């Protein structure tokens, strides 16, 4: 399983009902179901990945995360996951608002555009590429690039309170929670959040 999925799985309590937005072939859902006794649903737009998830027994809905979340009822899931997907959606603000509405806990993982290597590439005049952003600009599925710092501002705007933040380096090393350099040397961030009381 991908490194961030492992981190996400550790945030998910045993027996939770989980909604995994952008679930791909359902690896996280399958793991959570088999190892953690979780139930729930994946959401994926790519037909081939949906088929793979179906083959592995994960309930999965073929929906566009950007448009299809209205049908999920308020607080109908214990945990809503958005793993390495926020950079591919058109309206991240709306999706985060939906997550806050649907879940009692929200988990988001995201590649950090503010990683020093990306900054260096931009300084040298090139669009950043890295292990976490492996695409050339003209073929990238990524539409919205954010640094961890800016993402946290958006979390605050939509009323998601960060309870825990795990940042890992390119080599997969986990940074200290209070590391002041997280936005510079972090390659990926994983956030555990709760919607603020209205």
């Amino acid at each position, binding site marked *: 399983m991908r490194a961030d999925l492992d981190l996400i799985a550790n945030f998910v309590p045993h027996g939770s*009902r989980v909604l995994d937005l952008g679930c791909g072939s359902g690896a996280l859902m399958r793991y959570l179901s088999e190892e953690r006794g979780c*139930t729930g649903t994946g959401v994926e737009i790519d*037909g081939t990945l949906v088929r793979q998830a*179906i083959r592995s*027994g*994960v309930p*999965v809905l073929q*929906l566009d995360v950007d448009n299809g979340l209205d*049908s999920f009822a308020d607080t109908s899931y214990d945990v809503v996951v958005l793993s390495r997907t926020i950079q591919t959606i058109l309206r991240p603000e709306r999706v985060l608002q939906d997550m806050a509405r649907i879940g009692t806990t929200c988990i988001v993982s995201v590649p950090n555009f503010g990683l020093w290597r990306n900054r260096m590439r931009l300084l040298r005049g090139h669009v950043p590429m890295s292990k976490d952003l492996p695409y050339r600009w003209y073929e990238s599925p990524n539409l919205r690039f954010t640094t961890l710092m800016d993402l946290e501002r958006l979390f605050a705007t939509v009323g998601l309170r960060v309870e825990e933040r795990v940042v890992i380096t390119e080599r997969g090393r986990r940074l200290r929670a209070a590391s002041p350099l997280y936005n510079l040397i972090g390659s990926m961030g994983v956030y555990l959040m709760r919607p603020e009381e209205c």
Partner: protein
Amino acid sequence: MATLPEAGSVGLVETQSVRLFTESDPLHLAAGQTLGPVDVAYETYGTLSPAADNAVFICHALTGDAHAAGFHEGSSRPGWWDNLIGPGKVLDTRRLFVVSANLLGGCQGTTGPSSVDPATGRPYGLDFPLLRMHDFVTVHRRLVERLGIRRLLAVVGGSLGGMQALEWALKHPADMANTVMIAASSRLTAMNIAFSAVARRAIMTDPDFHGGQYAAAGVSPRIGLAIARMMAHITYMSEEALTEKFGRQPSGRDAPLGFGVDFAIESYLEHQGSTFLERFDALSYLYLTRVMDYFDPFADVDACAAARTAAHLRFLVMSFESDWRFSIDHSRRIVRHLEQERLRVSSREIGSTWGHDSFLLDLPEYHQTLRAFMERAIEEGI
């Protein structure tokens, strides 16, 4: 992608008939009346396992029948879902026991409005009781029981068949481990009902309808039924498919231009209308379309109460992009209700230009998805 195993035909098949209800042990209809005798026409493909745990029930669409796969003696036309059912196919008859049965109210071997009413000795006609979706289920459940099937591995249906599958799963979730609904609906829209209303009006205003007792008069409302079929058939296609298939080609008939069959599409519809007369009955058309109109299971706020208790049950809902008879929104509505009831549902929206009829076609994305679902179903068992 891995190469698929060589897929073949189930070969020669015969439609069987069984009397499931009698005058002394009649069918109790959802609306309260009784009906008997009730005969059911069905076919089976493959072999029921000793544990009776490998059965898949096929629910047919409005004008379908029990002959879903293989060939009848002397015919070169295979059953209507032959591309799906057979050795090595998506519903693999080397592993599965597939059952396909004609609907109650139908005209292809199962008791319907043109069957003889034992009370009068003549066809029921419009004295045949109005049916509900659940009546289809009641009859087919008894067939399943009669065949010695312990629990169905899956109920699979397209269009009206998908609606029957939904009703079956909601009311009797313990009967099956999996439910597959393809191009189905949980509630017809005003437009859907409108099309059926015009079809019914065409039939009932045909001078040969005779208040439903046309058989006694030795005729049938051929013009009305053909028009009903022609119009319905348009709704099963898409503008893109019609353009691709026919465009503005002339019919090629050697007649002066006018109000006859000048275009290929007109010729095609005329053919659809006339061949339909050979295999379908006008009264069945009235009764079965009405069942679809009335169907609205989620109007009952507790529609999913039984299914919620069936922890094993899985749903697959598939729809096609160019389908405007039952658009993708119909399938999304089913998914939304099931998901909100916390049932295990998967959905797949298939890109296809072939409209509602896509569910009858061998579209790779569609068949691969169903294959994936069935492979998982076989692994999980009942």
